[in-house]
């Protein structure tokens, strides 16, 4: 079972990952964007991390919604509303829950993906967050459907997510700021697809403990 402790650990791991990879994500965004993605993600999750102690009394749904509000009001840019909506939809779905079954974790992830797609209208192949998040969600749920346990499913999700992020390299961006570059957006890994892979990896790391 995934407990609130795991969720709080996930958020802390994510905050640390964004701090560690601030420059890396910004560098990716320098190539095909406006050089702020690492700064944006770091600003948002730093704030989330500060608020973790205050989240302790909340249920998982409420925690995720509080994260959403924090991201929405601190990140800005494209990633703020996208990740904000991701956590908002995930939180709505998990309302009232104190712990999650592996199946519920699959629902959480799916709701998050659905939130990103609702907000950003992107599909796979457009060089966005969706290119990493959708394979991750699919891998997780498929793996679980095929009888894998939670840990195996999470591992598959992480692998699919990282692969999805890498596969954005040859893509021509069709959404977001990188799309202005047309052909010139080829050959660079998408910042958002990369940051979501850190989020999924952080979740896995949290649940391993």
């Amino acid at each position, binding site marked *: 079972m995934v407990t609130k402790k795991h969720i709080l650990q996930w958020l802390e791991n994510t905050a640390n990952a964004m701090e560690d990879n601030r420059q890396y994500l910004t560098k990716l965004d320098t190539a095909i964007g*406006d050089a702020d993605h690492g700064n944006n993600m770091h600003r948002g999750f730093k704030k989330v991390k500060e608020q973790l102690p205050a989240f302790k009394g909340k249920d998982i749904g409420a925690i995720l919604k509080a994260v959403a509000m924090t991201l929405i009001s601190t990140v800005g840019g494209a990633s703020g509303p996208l990740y904000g909506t991701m956590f908002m939809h995930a939180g709505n779905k998990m309302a009232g829950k104190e712990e999650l079954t592996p199946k519920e974790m699959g629902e959480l992830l799916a709701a998050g993906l659905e939130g990103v797609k609702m907000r950003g209208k992107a599909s796979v192949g457009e060089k966005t967050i969706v290119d990493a998040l959708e394979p991750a969600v699919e891998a997780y749920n498929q793996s679980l459907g095929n009888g894998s346990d939670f840990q195996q499913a999470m591992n598959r999700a992480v692998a699919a997510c990282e692969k999805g992020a890498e596969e954005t390299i040859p893509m021509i961006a069709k959404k977001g700021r990188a799309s202005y570059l047309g052909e010139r957006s080829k050959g660079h890994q998408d910042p958002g697809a990369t940051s979501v892979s850190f989020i999924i990896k952080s979740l896995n790391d949290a649940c391993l403990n």
Partner: protein
Amino acid sequence: MKKLINHPDNIIREQLEGMQLAHGDLIKVNYEPYYITRKEATPEGKVALVSGGGSGHEPMHGGFVGKGMLDAACPGEVFTSPTPDQMFEAAKAVDSGSGVLNIVKNYTGDVMNFEMAADMAMAEGIKVQNIIVDDDIAVKDSLYTAGRRGVGTTVLIEKICGGAAEDGYDLKKLSDLCKKVNRYGRSMGMALTSCITPANGSPSFEISDDEMEIGIGIHGEPGIERDKLKSVDEITEMMTNSILDDPAYHRVLKEWDAGKNQWVDVEVVDDPFKKGDQVIAFVNSMGGTPVSELYGVYRKMAHVLEKRGIKVVRNLIGPFITSLEMQGCSITLLKADDEILKYWDAPALTPALRKKM
């Protein structure tokens, strides 16, 4: 990085404090969250005009808050869209009951954040419309991209719609004017140097001494193409002709349908410029290019327009929508009819733009 700043983390706050100290007779800065309003409350019956966007484009938007232009502006982090709570709080602060028109530059982040803010404001019973500015012809198609960026026309819209709002336009009429000005305006930009965002401390793109970047946006993002540095005449001729030769532009823009009570997609088409058109010509500095060089650009642009049978009836020249300390310029041409000219000429008194006041 050479900038007149303290710590990069504090520049938005400190520069806002500077604005407040400098222009306390015109504006009021709110710090949590950040937004700037006029000093005086919106008069009853007047639609409130709100805009916002990443910082680093000063004087846009904060410098355009004041009589005859914006009622409020929301500054984001440098080159990062502001957040919905800023926009929502600003809307609440300036709505007089006649509604709020949000002027939104067409960037994925700005559009999404303003949409969320509009939803929040409407949930509180505030009438809202979001109008998107997408005038940067460097971005060619809309089917395979996020669409054209909002650049120079934004400044002209804020002046023109500001004048009309002052004159009593209701939300519907003001939105229609705003959409028209956007349809009538087209821009193109170029850069000689990259800017440096304070948070990063290094150039947003590398460019050598004999190169220039064409079709640049205002966020230090790379342009559409890299070219050898040319003379101002060649650069200006290319930019002006590109704007004039740009064909009809089709795209789908989202707006709020108050009747249906939902966001709807509307197909919008810009007609190309044609011989005989009258225009407002706006030659803008990206920040690091001094006004003297803009006059060199203006000269050649005027020659090209004259040759093409386009008449410049008004102009604006200077650093109004910038990209930090980037060297470069942009040209915006706005087809001007009587309504547009009337409100372009209307009085305005803001920190950065002043007319008849």
